[in-house]
């Protein structure tokens, strides 16, 4: 049996009258690509927010490699090896792609110095290789706000990968990307994850993507997990087909 990386138990949170998490139990296993699907407002992003410390659950706990991380802030959880990529790319818009990447590298290696130039850090070659891997090396010297949405999305993921995490949580990695490019991006991405031996969780709406790239699927429905299992099984489930996929 593979190692449990993240383990969520009985997570509950409500915003006013809306119950965004109503007893979520879920394990993220080493080496898997876990897809999270479900209708809008089912609490998928809230789950990512709770597992990364952005929101604190009102009940329940989250642990990472057996260590309780429920009350820790995002930066501490990140340091432990849980990285996150965002639905809307969260970049440092006034700086170049390479500067963005090198900040991530400096954060990982703890080079919080005021004396050495960022652009002279030894990780520069490594970051170039990483940008190459996700296919945005050509943009390295451009400021991130100049990039098209799809490329921003990739830089957002590269920033997280630069942290060399054990597990990467991605919120709709292909949303906002033209459907013709989706497949290409996911190919690049799964390839990069495999190369770096990073496990992943990704929220996804496109069932074709789920079928193709997920090793396991969890279905969300009004704050609860409806079903978890291999894609072939889950995507054939009649209830899931009716409510989530909408067939």
């Amino acid at each position, binding site marked *: 049996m593979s190692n449990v990386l993240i383990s969520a138990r009985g997570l509950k949170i409500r915003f006013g009258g809306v119950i965004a998490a109503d007893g979520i139990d879920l394990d993220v296993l080493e080496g898997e690509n876990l897809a999270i699907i479900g209708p809008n407002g089912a609490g998928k992003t809230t789950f990512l927010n709770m597992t*990364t410390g*952005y929101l604190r659950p009102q009940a329940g706990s989250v642990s990472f490699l057996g260590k309780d991380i429920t009350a820790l*802030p*995002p*930066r*501490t959880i*990140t*340091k432990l090896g849980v*990285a*996150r990529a*965002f639905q809307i790319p*969260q*970049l*440092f*818009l*006034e*700086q170049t792609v390479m*500067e963005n990447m*090198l*900040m*991530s590298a*400096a*954060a*990982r290696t703890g*080079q*919080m*110095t*005021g*004396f*050495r*130039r*960022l*652009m*002279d*850090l030894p990780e520069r070659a490594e970051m170039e290789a990483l940008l190459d891997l996700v296919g945005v090396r050509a943009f390295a010297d451009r400021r991130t706000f100049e990039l098209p949405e799809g490329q921003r999305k990739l830089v957002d993921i590269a*920033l*997280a990968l630069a*942290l060399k995490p054990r597990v990467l949580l991605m919120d709709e990695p292909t949303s906002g990307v033209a459907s013709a490019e989706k497949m290409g991006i996911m190919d690049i991405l799964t390839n990069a994850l495999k190369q770096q031996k990073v496990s992943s969780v990704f929220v996804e709406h496109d069932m074709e993507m789920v079928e193709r790239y997920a090793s396991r699927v969890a279905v969300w429905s009004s704050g609860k997990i409806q079903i978890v299992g291999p894609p072939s099984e889950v995507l054939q489930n009649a209830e899931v087909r009716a409510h989530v996929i909408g067939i």
Partner: protein
Amino acid sequence: MARLSNLHRVLIAIAIAASIIVPALLPSWTTLVTLILAKGIVVLGIIILLQAGQVSFGHAMFFGLGAYSVAFWGKYLGTGDLLLYIVIAPVVATLVGALVGVFVVRYREIFFGMLNLAFSMVLWSLLEKLYHFTNGADGIRVARPTIAGMAFPPETFQYLLLYITLALALVASFAVQRYLDSPLGHMLKAIKTNETRLEYLGVSARKVLLIGYIISAFLGGLGGALVTVAQQIATPEFAFWTKSGEFVFIAILGGTANAAGAFAGAAMFEIVRFLAAAKLANAWQLILGVVLIVIIMFAPSGLIGLLKRGAASEGKR
């Protein structure tokens, strides 16, 4: 733009030359040039915080602390040495900066500005009202200090103070520019554009901002000491909110993208004030206000931005 551009090299050469030649030709401008350089040092600190998108409307607090460190030393311990003053004053400002900083770096934008303002007004009220210690609004006169144990006549002292200030300004600018180009400096900018993501890189934004805040407090204290020695007086006005506004004003006037802007802005500000005070004594503040509005409306990247634009179009020709 990691390395110094040619434009910057030229500007620095002009600034050094002007700082030495102008006072040699116009002795009455010696103190003015010293003040420009000393205030430029303070404004470097404002520029650091502006990288993170934070405006301190209370930075005069550190300027005042530097000034009164010198004044109190003179009042209670006897006239000291310039070299001592330029160590003591920034150290005091840095210590207070670290203490106040721990609190204020938890806040952003208007709250950051407000809290800084409140702290500085507390200091101002104390300087103004604890008359027995501070002489209140009259301020404390500061005698001419020795330099490395030697006493100098006023004219010589003026020039020596200028050269020492120039040297400090150069060191401070290079150090600040290097800091802004470093990982910590870049992370300051990251606080401005996306603090949440910075935390998601595993970085404590508060720690990054605190380091910047402490450096800016240090620079404020150093500048305050130099201005006090140059003007031979420290008054509560040094810590008043309008003084804080003046520093932010100078930063925007010069341009906040790099260290050079601090001195360009300070030069413009002090020269306009100096000339206007001589010709239109009653309207210098009005003139500066109009200049500020024109700069904000038509040249938002400040004087350095204007020069850059000029240099760029020159290059195309």
